[in-house]
């Protein structure tokens, strides 16, 4: 497996100690970068909530209760109810599931797709590199949201399709960054050595190039996580992402939340706070990770 040594490389970079091991690396990260550790803790907490939404949520997120429409936050409903009497807290908790699913799905695929294209482009160089770069330039000329909107219109708006629509605009952005790291690696003696030893392109790329772009890869990945969640909420806010009655944060801000904003502000406030907190946590963690792995690299 090519992946394991790669992660070890990253972990060593984190801890700055060559033989620290995983636990020591994590402890060191927490000690040196408390903000990053807080971000990571919030992310873990959200993951736990998203996975166990059935257990944590006090109500069924899609259960309509016309007797309890627009209830103020209180003992019965901690964060109030929406225009259909659905419990806002429960919808937020289930919404975390949608957000994280789309976030992790598209960030993982976007960063990975970009890594493959970026490394391939740098490794083969010449014409392939030129054409791939031009192609990436073309996709980079579209604002993220415009491309995602067009893709959702083509693919439809089930969760897997929304993930795809967010992934595709991310690929050229990660390819750009990872290519520039890979260009430097291509010139390393060990790549020459591998070539001299007669290894095939696939093996050199998988075993020698990819593991060494792990630092920018992980940085792009964490940067994308927050962006993907924001993009997902934007799409569903426009009514073009995940559809009702699925619980999604952007969707909760749509329609009634704005119409009843004055009389029932909790409907507009809490989902926005959830989005902000989630993205904030990912960015906090991502920033510290970047500082630890590669302070020279700039994301956003």
């Amino acid at each position: 497996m090519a992946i394991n040594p790669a992660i070890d490389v990253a972990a060593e970079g984190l801890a700055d100690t060559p033989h620290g091991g995983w636990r020591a690396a994590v402890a060191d990260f927490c000690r040196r970068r408390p903000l990053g550790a807080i971000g990571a803790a919030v992310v873990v907490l959200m993951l736990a909530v998203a996975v166990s939404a059935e257990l944590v949520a006090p109500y069924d997120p899609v259960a309509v209760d016309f007797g309890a429409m627009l209830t103020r936050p209180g003992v019965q409903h901690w964060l109030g109810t929406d225009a259909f009497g659905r419990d806002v807290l429960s919808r937020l908790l289930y919404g975390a599931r949608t957000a994280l699913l789309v976030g992790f799905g598209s960030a993982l695929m976007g960063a990975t797709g970009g890594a493959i294209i970026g490394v391939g482009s740098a490794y083969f160089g010449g014409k392939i590199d030129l054409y791939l770069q031009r192609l990436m330039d073309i996709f980079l000329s579209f604002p993220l949201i415009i491309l995602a909107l067009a893709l959702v219109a083509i693919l439809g708006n089930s969760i897997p399709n929304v993930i795809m629509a967010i992934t595709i605009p991310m690929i050229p952005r990660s390819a750009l960054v990872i290519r520039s790291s890979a260009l430097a690696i291509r010139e390393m003696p060990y790549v020459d050595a591998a070539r001299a030893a007669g290894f095939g392109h696939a093996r050199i790329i998988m075993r020698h190039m990819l593991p060494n772009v792990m630092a920018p890869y992980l940085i792009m990945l964490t940067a994308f996580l927050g962006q993907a969640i924001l993009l997902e909420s934007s799409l569903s806010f426009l009514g073009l992402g995940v559809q009702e009655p699925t619980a999604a944060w952007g969707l909760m801000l749509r329609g009634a939340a704005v119409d009843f904003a004055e009389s029932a502000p909790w409907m507009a406030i809490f989902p926005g706070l959830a989005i902000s907190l989630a993205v904030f946590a990912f960015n906090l963690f991502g920033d510290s990770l970047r500082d630890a792995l590669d302070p020279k690299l700039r994301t956003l």
Partner: protein
Amino acid sequence: MWKYLLKRFALMFPTLLGVAVVTFILIRVIPGDVVELRLAGDRGSVSDEMLNAERIKFGLDQPVWRQFVTWIAGAARLDFGTSMWTGSPIWDEIRLRFALSFQVALMSTIVAVLLAIPLGVIAALRQDTWVDYTVRIFSIAGLATPSFWLGIVFILALLILFKWLPPMVYTPIWVNPWQNLAQLIWPALAVGYRYSAVATRMTRSAMLEVLREDYIRTARAKGLVEKLILSRHALKNAMLPVLTVIAIEFAFLIGGLVVTEQVFNLNGVGLLFVQAVAHRDYTLIQALVMLVAGIFILMNFLMDIMYAWLDPRIRYR
């Protein structure tokens, strides 16, 4: 230098052409077409002959490559045809909306610059102190807060605190500047905050890099006043990447305000794009994408010129 710029200039066109091709294909893959949507609308019954007659009128019966050739021949003369949905010329559809989006983008840029440059510089000068941490948290929060939600919060706050709502109907600035600003300042603030976060982070990291350069040490060693070191040596050199980020963000804002425009009921380019996609208005989508991508590509070119102008190492390459 001229050779370099000429090459850069020439490179804009293949990219624009690529954008045109990609858009042309993408929008034709979207299920349903404009004729069907306009005539059949809500499941009204329309004969196939009628649909086909309309398609022939728009040239939609032609093979895609021929449609493309016809379209690009017009686009080369900046003639983007008429909207397939409303039938009015594309330029008439876009003009006022572009003015609106452009103004919001410009105002957001002003907000962002006014926030970002002082904050970024201070954070860099006081690196790893509470000032730095506060600025960083403020800017990470800016990246995390969706502008459209911030917009909702603004409206809500104005409504609850002042019992006042910003005007909901767009007045061009040349008609009534006061009315215009009262409406557009809120989206500009909401978008400007996020935008400033991007620029603050860039200012901070560029300043940190520059402050470690030898020429700063030299300037300090020769006893130059700190203020002059900052303004004349540090800031000047740190501004290049910051300007790039600002320019790129600005270019994206013109088309990328989709969601904020929805919140503030602004009939801008972004909202027009959403409507155009919903109507499958091929000519309008195509023109809007070319406009937005064209501005982005042009901005990139202008940045190249600026870099070449400011940095002799690029100029003589």
